[in-house]
């Protein structure tokens, strides 16, 4: 019986298995194939902190969710249409994410009594215990079939068994009518020096595909047409890579060499790793002895004239607090990236959250305001990093860029910009022997001091953490102190003149304004789009700039009857808005579970206000 091919606009697949089962790679390869076919997509790797937790336990389950579509895809999907579970623990942990209509693909070989018990099931029937009896279940002996597929390959048994994720991928490719060639091409590149692995992986992938076709257990397969995308050249990019590349672009545009001083920390490490690769573009990375050295080497590099950055996550940001004050005091350009994760303390290191906003805004001694920005999607990290660097250099001050684990690890298609179309970056560098140079004399527009680079004749000067007067002399004069505090704060406030106004998506005025910031954009946008069909007028105001706020913020707020601030914390941005724009009443929708929002829960929260 030939199967029926059904056209769908979008579909969500969740790959799950033990940490060692290769689910992140499987998900990535599925995504890459979708990209080549012109689908829009959004990914969400969801993995544990442990590298290899005990096998077959829930704590070791690694997941990768991807949504692909023929129309605008802004989120990795709430619930999945297909759940792949390579063992009982993966099923136990992920069944909650499967739609009632979902197809569940299981590795039958892993469903033995011992593994079922280890996963935490109390009966010997996981399907019934999880109330999955009405789902389409494909119970495939994936390990056995992989062994069979590669029995003549000459590979050792460990390598053979490790290839079982490609068998599962083959099944999924059949299910969604995907060509195998992009993945063959990947093996070709990846194993260029190990031809036996190219052949083996190709065979397992093909055999998985054929298996799904031959068993006739699958009545329907699905087709997702290419998305209508603007003409151009695209690539798949994750947030950490985009962040790194945004800085490299800012370095090229400004002519200032790029220096990154950092200490490895989940989920920010990817930025340092990406920059460390880019010796070809002259990027200097220093993996420091600690977080403090990360920012302090960056401050030294900024003083010496480099575009200096440091990358971290919440606990590391805590350690950098004192040095951030030094950067504010010395008025040096510096970008600090905080890829937020669940806190406090070590928290849940691999899970996403937006709980560092207060720390970013206020976490320093003294009156110490900083520009705070946030990236809204994986590819937007490129623009956010570029603009953070531009503002830091042109306004001579540290800038905090908030990213999130969800963005850093998540990926989406990105239309590649041309560098000639990126704005220029013009740092106020002082020419040699300028007699008018004093360290803290400011320009009238931006209130920025100028950048006198060591090595330049005739500009010798000393700066540091002690309060200074405009000429650079150490001063504890009460009025000078108050004046300099005012000037530093005014300089940050002035940035409002240089950032775009707040945009509203959806209804431009009316019943409810959904307010968000950072990596929740995709979910909020999708939820607001869904609600456009109703007769209530609902808009979305999503903030990329948090300090200072866009100048038209109050104008936008005034146009709606209700404002609901949605964020992955207990209400930090809402509290900040109450402080900055008091006349408005701010409803809140909050979630602090280490997980992104789902679109449906946002819709429900907004409807409650109507």
């Amino acid at each position, binding site marked *: 019986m030939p199967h029926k091919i059904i056209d769908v606009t979008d579909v969500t697949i969740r790959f799950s298995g033990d940490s060692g089962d290769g689910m992140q790679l499987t998900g990535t390869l599925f995504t890459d194939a979708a990209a080549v076919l012109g689908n829009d997509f959004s990914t969400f790797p969801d993995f544990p902190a442990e590298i290899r937790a005990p096998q077959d336990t829930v704590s070791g389950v690694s997941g990768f969710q991807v949504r692909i579509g023929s129309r605008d895809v802004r989120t990795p999907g709430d619930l999945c249409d297909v759940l792949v579970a390579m063992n009982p623990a993966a099923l136990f942990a992920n069944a909650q994410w499967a739609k009632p209509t979902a197809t569940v693909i299981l590795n039958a070989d892993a469903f033995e009594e011992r593994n079922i018990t280890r996963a935490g099931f109390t009966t010997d029937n996981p399907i019934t215990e999880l109330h999955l009896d009405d789902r389409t279940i494909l119970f495939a002996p994936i390990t056995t079939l992989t062994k069979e597929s590669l029995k003549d390959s000459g590979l050792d048994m460990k390598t053979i068994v490790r290839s079982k994720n490609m068998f599962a991928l083959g099944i999924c490719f059949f299910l969604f009518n995907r060509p195998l060639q992009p993945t063959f091409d990947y093996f070709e590149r990846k194993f260029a020096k190990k031809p036996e692995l190219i052949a083996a992986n190709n065979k397992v992938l093909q055999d998985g595909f054929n298996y799904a076709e031959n068993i006739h257990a699958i009545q329907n397969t699905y087709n997702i047409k290419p998305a209508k995308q603007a003409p*151009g050249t695209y*690539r798949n990019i994750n947030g950490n890579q985009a962040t790194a*590349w945004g800085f490299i672009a800012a370095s090229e545009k400004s002519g200032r060499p790029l220096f990154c001083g950092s200490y490895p920390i989940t989920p920010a490490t990817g930025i340092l790793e990406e920059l460390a690769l880019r010796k070809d573009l002259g990027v200097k990375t220093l993996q420091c002895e600690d977080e403090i*050295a990360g920012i302090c*080497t960056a401050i030294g590099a900024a*003083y010496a004239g480099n575009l200096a950055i440091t990358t971290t996550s919440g606990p590391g940001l805590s350690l950098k607090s004192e040095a951030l004050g030094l950067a504010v005091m010395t008025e040096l350009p510096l970008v600090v990236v905080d890829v937020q994760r669940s806190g406090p303390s070590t928290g849940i290191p691999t899970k996403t959250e937006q709980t560092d906003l207060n720390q970013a805004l206020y976490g320093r001694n003294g009156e110490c305001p900083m520009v705070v920005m946030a990236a809204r999607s994986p590819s937007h990290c490129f623009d956010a990093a570029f603009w953070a660097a531009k503002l830091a250099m042109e306004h001579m001050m540290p800038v905090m860029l908030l990213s999130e684990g969800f963005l850093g690890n998540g990926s989406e298609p990105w239309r590649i910009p041309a560098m000639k179309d990126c704005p220029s970056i013009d740092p106020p560098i002082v020419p040699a022997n300028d007699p008018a140079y004093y360290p803290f004399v400011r320009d009238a527009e931006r209130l920025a001091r100028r950048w006198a680079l060591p090595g330049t004749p005739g500009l010798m*000067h*000393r700066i540091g*953490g002690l309060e200074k007067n405009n000429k650079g002399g150490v001063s504890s004069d009460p009025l000078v102190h108050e004046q300099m505090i005012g000037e530093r704060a005014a300089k940050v406030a002035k940035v409002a003149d240089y950032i775009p106004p707040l945009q509203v998506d959806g209804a431009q005025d009316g019943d409810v304004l959904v307010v968000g910031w950072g990596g929740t954009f995709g979910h909020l946008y999708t939820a607001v789009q869904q609600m456009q069909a109703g007769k209530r007028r609902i808009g979305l105001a999503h903030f990329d700039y948090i300090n200072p706020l866009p100048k038209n913020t109050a104008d936008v707020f005034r146009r709606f009857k209700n404002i609901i601030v949605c964020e992955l914390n207990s209400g930090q941005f809402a509290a900040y808005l109450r402080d900055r724009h008091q006349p408005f009443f701010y409803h809140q929708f909050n979630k602090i579970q280490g997980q992104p929002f789902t679109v449906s829960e946002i819709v429900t929260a907004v409807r409650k206000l109507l």
Partner: protein
Amino acid sequence: MKYTAQDFKSDQEVKWCPGCGDYSILAAVQRAFPELCETLGYTKEQFVFVSGIGCASRFPYYMDTYGFHGIHGRAAAIATGVKVANPSLTVWQISGDGDALAIGGNHFIHAIRRNIDINILLHNNQIYGLTKGQYSPTSKLGKVTKTSPYGTVEHPFNPGELVLGARGTFFARTIDVDVKLTSEIMLASARHDGTAVTEILQNCVIFNDGAHAAVTQKAVRDDRTIVLRHGEPMIFGLNRDKGLMLDGLQLKVVRIGEKGITEKDILVHNAQEPNPGIHMMLVNMQAPDFPVALGVIRAVSDKTYDDSVRDQVLHIQANAGIKNVDDLLHSGSTWSVER
């Protein structure tokens, strides 16, 4: 361009306590730098002084060079950033014993481990001065201070031992008031490629007066110190009649002319010996049994961090397919969407 000491004096009023050892150190640096510039071809704008927090750390304000007064303990990290960002600069770090060895101990040892080409002047007065008299990581065991009213119960660091333990390539020791020796060491430090640490036995006249007096007082100095110079025999004493010899695996002090010992039997100082064994014994010599070692104790050549960073970049760039950001953005898998 010819400089004088005056060229290195800034317009800032020097605010250390009268009698502070830091005055002599500042004078020695300002005296050494004109010669240093002439010898090594530096110009004034190439100098950057970086400091942390503490009395010593006010030093950059008094030098008419580029200067950065950092935060407590972080001078080595800031100095490292300056040097990596622009290797043509000559970077001098000023830290006290608390700044470098307590709060900044981690940065101190890692700067040394990397062998980044910076010069570290470690003003060791064995006390916290700017916070008014608490014990430091170099205070002697049992030292009575405001935070150790019954005497400390912790062992001090010997900075030289720490430098050698961190695989240091250069260590020197001098006395604050010996401007001539300090100037000589500044030149050696500047010549050295790599992290050059100079410990300066410095007197805090207010909170730890005379801490080094048993060694540094003029009346006893010649007998209780030995100035080491590469290639010269280890002879000391007012009458130049004492020397150091190896006795098995130990150093011993001998008298020249006694028991048939002649100058030829005395150890010759080899600062360039990579094996730190003898250097370790030299840095650990303590009064009254031994003279305290001064001068350049260790100066071995090794690749510097900043050179390695530069070389790696040049090597990769020579064979790179990616020449600019447009190349980068289009590297790897891409796809096109047609109109």
